[in-house]
């Protein structure tokens, strides 16, 4: 496969490509940043990227959003991924809220939200 072909494929699948890119960036933020809130934001970025990926699967060229009008016929997009992602978004916000409550408590106990400092205070281990 030549470079041009690859670029064309990536253009055709640009949502997938960018979703993967965002996923990697979010993952990177989550792994390398010591600030716990940054970790949580990275986690959200990662989740959103996956959602974008999922929504892109459901897209159909020329399709409309699946709100029916009785008696009218259109091409619609695939509604299933949208329905799934709604669930996903709520899951992400729940996890975020819980993670943030843990961070607030960690700050109260350790006086910092830096993972390395917390590790230093605890002595040993890694987050």
């Amino acid at each position: 496969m030549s470079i041009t072909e690859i670029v064309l494929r990536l253009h055709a699948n640009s949502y997938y490509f960018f979703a993967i890119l965002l996923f990697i960036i979010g993952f990177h933020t989550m792994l390398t940043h010591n600030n716990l809130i940054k970790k949580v934001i990275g986690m959200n970025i990662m989740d959103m990227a996956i959602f974008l990926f999922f929504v892109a699967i459901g897209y159909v060229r020329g399709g409309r959003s699946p709100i029916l009008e009785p008696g009218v016929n259109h091409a619609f997009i695939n509604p299933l991924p949208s329905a799934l992602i709604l669930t996903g978004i709520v899951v992400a916000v729940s996890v975020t809220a819980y993670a943030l409550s843990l961070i607030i408590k960690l700050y109260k106990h350790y006086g910092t939200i830096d993972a390395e400092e917390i590790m230093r205070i605890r002595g040993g281990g890694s987050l």
Partner: protein
Amino acid sequence: MRKLLVLFFLAVIMVVMVATVVEMPTIGDPANVTNNEVPRRYVEDSLRETGALNVIASILTDYRAFDTLGEATVLFVAIAAVLSNLKAH
């Protein structure tokens, strides 16, 4: 050192994933395998079967309502976890 390692690791993932992306079915192609009998029935029959205009609402609260119950439960579990965590300390 650790950062480099992470970068390398992520680069490997990226390359693998891009190689996969190149192979994936094209976005929006109506011939894709995902546009099978499943969304067809949702779009064509949901009006008759559930009486809702919004297909996504009918999927969420009827065809796959159990997922949505799970979703409500996720919210509930988040509340329980947050409140218990905050109250305990």
